[in-house]
């Protein structure tokens, strides 16, 4: 009689599978963020520039477009540019990994692309390797922490921290428990910088209202891990009594937990209520929107004018783009349910927010739109003693003043060297 034994080889295969699972558990997804745009009252008609040359803008998206906040916003930007300029067309590729960035780019160039963008640093950086081969093409990549440039390899990011500062003011006003939670990805320059904007807003709001507010940050270890994001959101609510929740990670789970728990949620990157209808203003107190078209427009203009592009672009609320229908939009702006500015504050949340905070949101927004005020210039940077150790740049000791109030940090420092949390946050294990 034949006897069957579970072969040893099979055990080996299973052990390997388990190791894969360990990897899955420990590995991560990539970037995240950004948002769709929206409508402000039409103020001026679209500027129709006479443009003879045909331009093709190509975007390589690291993820799929549909239903995503990051690539969805980049895609919307490409469409808005093409809609505005009859002689500009927009083409794209989805789910581009770092190994396929260059092959896809060359394919897009063969299709006529004059501008090729990688919408995340991990897959956009390889474009610099072919920048010299195609000097007539402008290449561009989002910045996460690297600032490598070439004359035709542009690095860019929007000053989202400005909108996050305004959100922080609202969050400080809304918390009753005095505890605000952040479900965050992992310590990186981009995450730290964004959290710093939010933190300064909360601290200013708390000071104005004479409230004691604690910001709890708990890292997922990944930009995208829906299950853990959910669990961390629940932990923040159950154990740390958080009643205002925000996130610097990518899945919709924290929003769902906030809805389920009946607490306030502060959005990021896009107007998820107005754009996707993922929730309502009963939960989303405020959110913000990012308009990448402000940046892409600069590249298109430099191409049309035959001028070399700026190699580092870091526009904020002072920079605008006029849509084809004449709507003027800033690079970033607070936005919720299709409304911008203080109108974006949830109608249900608004009565709970003292007038002085509403006035301050309005005032700071206007000042930032005029380029007269910036939270990172106005405030001192006091280290919390936590953050990300960079090569040759340890995390400053707790309490150390890294930058005095009134001094404007350089673009390079903000984009590549901001490596510490600001005093006022509690980083949870």
């Amino acid at each position, binding site marked *: 009689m034949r006897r069957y034994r579970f*072969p040893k080889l*099979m055990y080996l295969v299973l052990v390997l*599978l388990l190791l894969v699972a360990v990897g899955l558990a420990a590995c991560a997804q990539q970037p995240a963020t950004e948002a769709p745009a929206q409508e402000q009252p039409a103020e001026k008609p679209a500027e129709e520039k006479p443009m003879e040359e045909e331009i093709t803008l190509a975007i390589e998206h690291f993820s799929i477009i549909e239903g995503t906040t990051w690539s969805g916003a980049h895609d919307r930007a490409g469409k808005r540019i093409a809609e505005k300029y009859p002689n500009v067309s927009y083409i794209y590729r989805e789910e581009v990994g770092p190994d396929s960035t260059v092959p896809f780019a060359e394919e897009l160039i063969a299709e006529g692309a004059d501008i090729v963008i990688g919408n995340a640093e991990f897959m956009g950086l390889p474009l610099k390797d072919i920048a010299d081969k195609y000097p007539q093409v402008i290449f561009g990549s989002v910045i996460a922490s690297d600032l490598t440039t070439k004359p035709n390899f542009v690095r860019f990011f929007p000053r989202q921290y400005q909108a996050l500062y305004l959100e922080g003011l609202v969050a400080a006003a809304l918390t009753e428990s005095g505890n605000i939670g952040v479900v965050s990805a992992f310590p990186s320059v981009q995450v730290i910088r964004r959290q710093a904007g939010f933190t300064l807003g909360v601290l200013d709001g708390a000071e104005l209202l004479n409230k004691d507010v604690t910001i709890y940050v708990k890292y997922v270890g990944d930009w995208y891990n829906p299950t853990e994001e959910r669990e961390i959101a629940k932990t923040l609510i159950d154990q740390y009594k958080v009643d205002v929740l925000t996130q610097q990670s990518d899945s919709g789970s924290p929003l769902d937990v906030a809805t389920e728990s009946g607490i306030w949620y502060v959005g990021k990157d896009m107007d998820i209520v107005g754009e996707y209808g993922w929730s309502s203003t009963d939960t989303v107190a405020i959110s913000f929107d990012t308009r990448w078209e402000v940046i892409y427009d600069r590249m298109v203009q430099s191409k049309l004018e035959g001028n070399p592009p700026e190699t580092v672009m870091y526009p904020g609320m002072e920079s605008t783009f006029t849509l084809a229908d004449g709507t003027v939009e800033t690079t970033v702006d607070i936005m919720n349910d299709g409304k911008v500015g203080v109108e974006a504050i949830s109608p249900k949340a608004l009565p709970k927010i003292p007038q002085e905070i509403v006035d301050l949101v309005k005032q700071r927004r206007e000042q930032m739109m005029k380029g007269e005020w910036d939270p990172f210039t106005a405030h001192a940077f006091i280290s919390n003693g936590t953050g990300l150790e960079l090569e040759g740049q340890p995390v400053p000791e707790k309490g150390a003043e890294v930058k005095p109030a009134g001094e404007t940090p350089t673009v390079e420092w903000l984009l590549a060297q901001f490596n510490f949390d600001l005093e006022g946050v509690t980083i949870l294990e």
Partner: protein
Amino acid sequence: MLAFLIRSLEAAMIFTFAGLGELVDQRGGVLNVGLEGIMLFGATLGFIAAKITGNYFIGFMVGMGVGALLGLAHGFFSITLGVDQVVSGMGIWIFGFGMTTYIGNPHTGPLGLERLPTVFEISPFFFLAVAMVVVVWFVLSKTGWGLNVRSVGEQPEVAEVSGLKVARIRYLCVIFGGMMSGFAGAVYGLYYNPVWNYNFLMGWGFISLALVFFSMWNPFLLFGGAVLFGLLWQLSLNPQMFFPGLASRYIWRMVPFIMTILVLILISSNWFRTRWGAATPEALGKPYHKE
């Protein structure tokens, strides 16, 4: 603390559903490493169905149905065609990962239905999981059906000679296994984390697979392991609650897999085979060809 325990049990119930299906699969001699893919399908299609119809029941039925179909597909490849079971299972996993991303993307975001109620703050699915453990144990250990399943998983030639239809029994096992995995996915997508995102399981199917080996094919041990894995999962998120400063949460996260690897090493040892040799279904992973 109570919240910690409740959330541990919610994770445990999902591991239990998927693990029980795989356990029956394996007791019948068929290994299905594609649990993750089937769970992704069950979660995604169940989520879409519930979202479109606004009906949870339809969502769960769709989840179970698609799981059963994928189990049937695995059966066709591994039983009828006799292909390598690991390869077939891996194919289902990869297919599930890609296809559910494609199908589900337009539905990214929260489910938008009112949450299902709890019983004393505990998920009703937890009680269902406990009941299923007892039922599976009873059927496998105390009934003729269970004996037939175990027979084809141990010595299919003998079972065939005794008049059992090995292929048919194995088909029923893989369909049941697929159905349970699909249901586990649906519970995840409709109850535990009702927000669709691509690849949202992030390895829970593999945890369930590991659990079957950890349990040494015993439903009660499987349930105990599920609760243990659920606790470890929660601990990996909040290690400071019990062991502040002891180890990074990323180390804790790997503990269930490390424990399973140790169990695999243990049960493949000669000592274990001599002492507890009956634990592993003898014909597990081997295609059976009628002679």
